């Protein structure tokens, strides 16, 4: 069965390691914060200027001066630090952030990503996405395998304007975990009960399937 968005987040949380500094994008990536294993130290960076993002505040304790990059009210944790936007992207650019998780509209088989602009529609802007994808050491894309029309989002080449080139390392969709290797999507895991055939059918770009593909463990 295909994963729901919570399960996608949960699967991504398996990629976390103790001591990681992680930037989570808006949408499914944000949910990853709920699945950080107990006892593991993971520090969340919010690119508007915070390391050590905590959970949402209790009702009535919201502070307009304390928000995340999605403009949601949040809290700090012991050991948090605030800084300005230049230092925030400085630490991103210098590779101090260990993992970046973000959504995408399209990913190509060589790791290009498109997630900011649809020609003909009102363009809201790239925000920090171009900085993040240009600099992150390790980028995982969290997205649906296909768009609402049922078309594959894993393509030979992106059709939408790019956010960044050759930067995505891994993709987790409702159907599969895939790694970007040598200009191909390499299938690593499939969602419980999802067949390799279904993944193949829904992947427009080059797909590498080697040996038995295990089911994800959640």
């Amino acid at each position, binding site marked *: 069965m295909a994963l729901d968005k919570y399960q996608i987040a949960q699967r991504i949380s398996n990629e976390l390691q103790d001591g990681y500094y992680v930037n989570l994008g808006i949408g499914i990536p944000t949910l990853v914060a709920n699945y950080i294993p107990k006892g593991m130290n993971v520090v969340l960076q919010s690119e508007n200027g915070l390391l050590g993002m905590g959970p949402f505040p209790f009702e009535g304790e*919201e502070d307009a001066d304390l928000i995340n990059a999605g403009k949601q009210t949040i809290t700090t944790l012991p050991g948090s630090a605030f800084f300005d936007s230049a230092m925030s992207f400085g630490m991103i650019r210098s590779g101090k952030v260990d993992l970046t998780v973000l959504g995408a509209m399209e990913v190509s088989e060589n790791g290009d990503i498109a997630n900011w602009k649809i020609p003909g529609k009102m363009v809201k*802007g790239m925000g920090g996405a171009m900085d993040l994808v240009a600099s992150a050491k390790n980028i995982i894309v969290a997205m649906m395998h296909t768009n609402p029309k049922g078309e594959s989002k894993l393509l030979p080449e992106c059709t939408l304007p790019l956010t960044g*080139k050759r930067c995505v390392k891994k993709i987790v969709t409702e159907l599969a975990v895939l790694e970007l290797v040598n200009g191909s999507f390499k299938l690593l895991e499939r969602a419980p009960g999802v067949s390799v055939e279904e993944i193949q059918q829904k992947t427009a770009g080059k797909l590498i399937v080697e040996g038995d593909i295990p089911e994800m463990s959640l």
Partner: protein
Amino acid sequence: MNKIYKNAEEAVADIKDGSTLMLGGFGLCGIPENCIAALVKKGTKNLVCISNNAGVDDFGIGLMLQQKQVKKMISSYVGENAEFERQLLSGELEVELVPQGTLATRCMASGYGMPAIYTPAGVGTEVAEGKEIRNFNGKDYLLEMAFDADFAIVKAWKGDEHGNLVYKDTARNFNPLMAMAGKITIAEVEELVPAGELDPNNIHTPGIYVHRIFKGVNYEKRIEQRTVRKK
């Protein structure tokens, strides 16, 4: 050396039509509410605004958009805002989209006397069009120019009579960077204290960068996305 102004009206009085302004804030967090209100009241037109976002319909820079005071926005993310979209689509408003880290660093570069910076953000995308690409150590970077502004308008938590500023939490964001980049920098603060009250080790913007300071009033501090959990 009197940097203290009575209020926003006085501090923005000489901002002329066609000026380039930097406005601090991220979303509605840490925006200079008093100066925006004074600019709306004053009706200054044809402004070029460098600001990460453009407010919402009835708050922040959105208020200036409603009065059609803005000719061009230079931002990383816009359009939480129907009037913005209408003006953009009708061609009344020009928009230049800049990656967020590039925007921040182009402001900082100005305050640091660096004419340009190299950043990898936007390489291989339409942001790179017409820009110089240069390879350092095997990686491509874009040359991006420092931003100047006639006025930088920032909001701080506390400030003193020397213009030293301290920001609170994530309301810091672009404010200290823009404060460094203004030909004239105007700071509105929630608390204006005498020199000596702020810890010199914890000044976020040294007063040398600040030309005008006043105590703001009636902060609404609107929350854009109120997210909470149950006790």
